[in-house]
């Protein structure tokens, strides 16, 4: 009888279900003991010193590590972290940090620390990116894009141990943004003891793949394209009320992230798409946190490739597009129009800066004068992932493609997966690219220097491949100036210069969003850099 096997199959399934139906309470406790975060992509490494992409910092900075200093998420002021206090000398060249004594490193299956955090770890962590002679400098590629783009290594004269819990850093020149730089996501504290142990085993590469830090979570394992697992650091020095387990569920598609958030498979998600914000707001079980972001989305030209080395061509292309339309269609009005690189949240924001305007006739004329014939072809590289500063680069590229067609320029859209995309960008294979920048503090130097200075070309943050001595000089001058008003004036000159030479077209400053389920407790949005799950748990 053919019905029989069917019956047995159904019977077995039901039995399994019944046996499996253990007490509701256990189940509840189990599912509440862990936190699942739907992240958007794979981290490149677990050491944020090595990479500026926010995927990397989200997965490492605030979860695995601590910094000497932190930003207060509300006021943006610098507050103590594992440095309990600090002193700045009158000449502004010597910084002394007093360290906490109760900071323990992670104990994991691959490393057991024998001592607490101390001055040696600070020296190890800073010297790694500062000194090319450091044994770990060239491990994992030897590039420290954030520090390189700011030229920080050149400005530090020495990092010295005063005693076990006191460190002194001497600068060569005054740097008004130095403390802010130490509080960013990239200035994390590694374990010197772990570094030594790995050197002895001959496996120094592991330091960035199997990280050891002092943060609220410790690393457990990682499977590319699938997940990252963390466990609670039971002896964390700070206040801790967070979940037992933290899991990053790597989900590149934003629609899928939202779906998982709705079904409760994720408790929080990265970068909800602008189109989905309404849906999240309309649901009672989901919360949406919003803050004006410290970011800028732009369209950069490869200024080393003709004809984009000609400022007139760049201006023509900028005049060919209507930024307001891009804002509406791509950001759904969750962003403000960018005139310069700096968002309004920065103190140096210039409200009356010059801005390009939509003028296809002028664009055509400029192109003709520059000898660019109708039918000229170029590439627009569109970022394959969503970022707050550009939630849908492909769509923006399609819109720009249409605008360019109106002025006789045929654009083709190019995209690769994120890692390949960035590698090819670094090689300068693009004509133009839609990308952006999220800063870690409101200091203007954090925008201008990494994005367009000469030093930022090899470190791979200067997507316009633009090198201009006037510009670099102005930036250096601004850093030497302590007086805010004087600095502000210098940055206005910088804005003017950028408007004239236009290596990139600033498009938008987006708001930052984070969506999470309402049973999460302690979740706050961090305007300065990556997400943090320390202190986040689920209500029972």
């Amino acid at each position, binding site marked *: 009888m053919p019905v029989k096997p069917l019956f047995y199959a159904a019977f077995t399934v039901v039995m*399994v279900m019944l046996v499996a139906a253990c007490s509701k309470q256990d189940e509840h406790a189990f599912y509440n003991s862990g936190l699942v975060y739907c992240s958007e992509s794979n981290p490149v490494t677990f050491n944020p010193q090595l990479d500026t992409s926010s995927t990397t910092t989200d997965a490492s900075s605030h979860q695995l590590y601590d910094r000497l200093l932190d930003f207060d998420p509300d006021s943006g002021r610098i507050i103590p972290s594992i440095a309990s206090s600090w002193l700045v000398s009158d000449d502004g060249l010597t910084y002394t940090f007093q360290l906490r004594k109760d900071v323990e490193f992670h104990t994991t299956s691959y490393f057991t620390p024998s001592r607490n955090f101390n001055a040696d770890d600070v020296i190890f962590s800073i010297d790694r990116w500062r000194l090319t002679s450091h044994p770990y400098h060239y491990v994992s590629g030897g590039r420290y894009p954030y520090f390189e783009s700011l030229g920080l290594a050149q400005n530090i004269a020495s990092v010295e141990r005063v005693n076990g819990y006191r460190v002194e850093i001497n600068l060569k020149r005054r740097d008004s943004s130095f403390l802010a730089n130490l509080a960013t996501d990239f200035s994390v504290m590694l374990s010197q003891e772990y570094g030594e142990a790995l050197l002895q085993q001959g496996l120094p590469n592991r330091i960035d793949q199997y990280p050891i830090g002092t943060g609220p979570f410790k690393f457990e394992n990682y499977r590319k394209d699938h997940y990252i697992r963390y466990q609670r650091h039971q002896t964390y020095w700070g206040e801790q009320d967070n979940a037992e387990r933290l899991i990053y569920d790597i989900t590149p598609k934003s629609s899928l992230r939202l779906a998982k958030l709705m*079904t409760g498979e994720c408790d929080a998600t990265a970068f909800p798409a602008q189109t989905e914000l309404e849906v999240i707001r309309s649901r009672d079980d989901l919360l949406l946190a919003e803050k004006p972001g410290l970011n800028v989305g732009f369209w950069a030209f490869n200024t080393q490739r003709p004809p984009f080395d000609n400022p007139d061509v760049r201006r023509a292309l900028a005049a060919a597009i209507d930024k307001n339309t891009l804002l509406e269609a791509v950001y759904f009005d969750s962003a403000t129009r960018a005139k310069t690189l700096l968002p309004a949240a920065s103190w140096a924001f210039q409200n009356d800066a010059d801005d390009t305007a939509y003028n296809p006739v002028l664009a055509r004329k400029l192109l003709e004068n520059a000898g660019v014939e109708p039918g000229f072809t170029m590439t627009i590289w569109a970022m394959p992932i969503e970022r707050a500063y550009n939630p849908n680069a492909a769509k923006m590229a399609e819109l720009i493609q249409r605008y360019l067609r109106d002025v006789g320029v045929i654009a083709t859209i190019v995209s690769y997966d994120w890692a390949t995309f960035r590698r090819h960008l670094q090689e300068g294979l693009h004509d133009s690219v839609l990308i952006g920048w999220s800063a870690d503090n409101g200091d203007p130097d954090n925008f201008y220097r990494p994005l367009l200075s000469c030093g930022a070309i090899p470190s791979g943050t200067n997507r316009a491949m633009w090198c201009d001595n006037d510009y670099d000089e102005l930036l250096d001058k601004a850093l030497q100036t302590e007086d805010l008003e004087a600095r502000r004036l210098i940055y206005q000159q910088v804005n003017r210069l950028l408007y004239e030479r236009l290596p990139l077209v600033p498009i938008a400053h987006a708001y930052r969003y984070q969506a999470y389920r309402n049973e999460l407790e302690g979740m706050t949005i961090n305007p300065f850099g990556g997400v943090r799950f320390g202190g986040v748990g689920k209500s029972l």
Partner: protein
Amino acid sequence: MIQILSRYGVLFILTLLVLTAMSFSLVYLFPGDVLENLTGIVPQNEIQREALMRQFRLDQPYIVQFFYYLSSLLQGDWGYSLASGLPLREEIGIAMPATIELSAYAMLMALFVGIPLGYYAGLKSYSTTDHTINALSITTYSFPVFWLALILILFFSLHLDIAPLSGRISLLFDIKPVTGFVLIDIMLAEGIDHGLAYRDAISHLALPTVAIGAITTASMVRITRRSVIDVIHRPYIVAARSRGVSEWQIFFRHVLRNALLPILPLMAIQITTLITNAMIVETLFSWPGIGSWLIQAIYQRDFPALRVGMLAVSTLVITLTIMVDLFNRIIDPSREKYERATV
């Protein structure tokens, strides 16, 4: 019998050789560097490149290269993924069982639901029930699998919230992939609540299995029904009926077995469709199987992964197909090999 076995053995090995040759030729056909396509190792400098070229016999004639390739495949050295840097054998070792598991459950569903329904429809042919079953099956059969999966997600996951939509099990369960089959791995895992884990895994399995299984079930119904109708109109059934053999006896002694025989070879074709559908559905349910792995690899232009992935999937499919064929031939030697039932 031995002749058949040896014949199929030769056929199998020959096909695998052709496939390996194809996968080897991909090394040269793919864009990018031949050495990287072959090994997945990006040489840091010229000296290392030279050494690798020598090691992989790339400085020698193609035929030598091919045999070296073949021998390293056999020794389990499949190269490294460009994207993750991990050994490909390890990655496929995790991804492949996930796909096999999903496809197997979908196939079981097709067999246990499709064949009985097909028999029923065939026996009651041209009745209302038959028409209903037939109409349902042709409708299901016409669904693009990715859309069906989306509808299932929309309705059961997002609307009713009774089934999760991604992965094999909640990530909160830390289950080491030992065999790669999640239901077995749960059994082997320690320190977790097994009951809870099983329930979680089964709820994760439900939607993708149904999405893949539904379409195969529909084809199964159609195939079985056709076969049964063909059989019940045969003269020997008419003869049996005229001799007064009861309907039950006719069914069990004649129809059941004779209608089943032509279905078997068609199952071989179903395997291909099933695995294709599984590969598409995996990407929608974030099922960590070979399909989503390969599609990820193509997005990342991970050529070594594509080369080996292609070989692994086609080997799997062809092994299954040939096994079904062989089985069919052994239980029914009278049948001419190329004769297959019509849908």
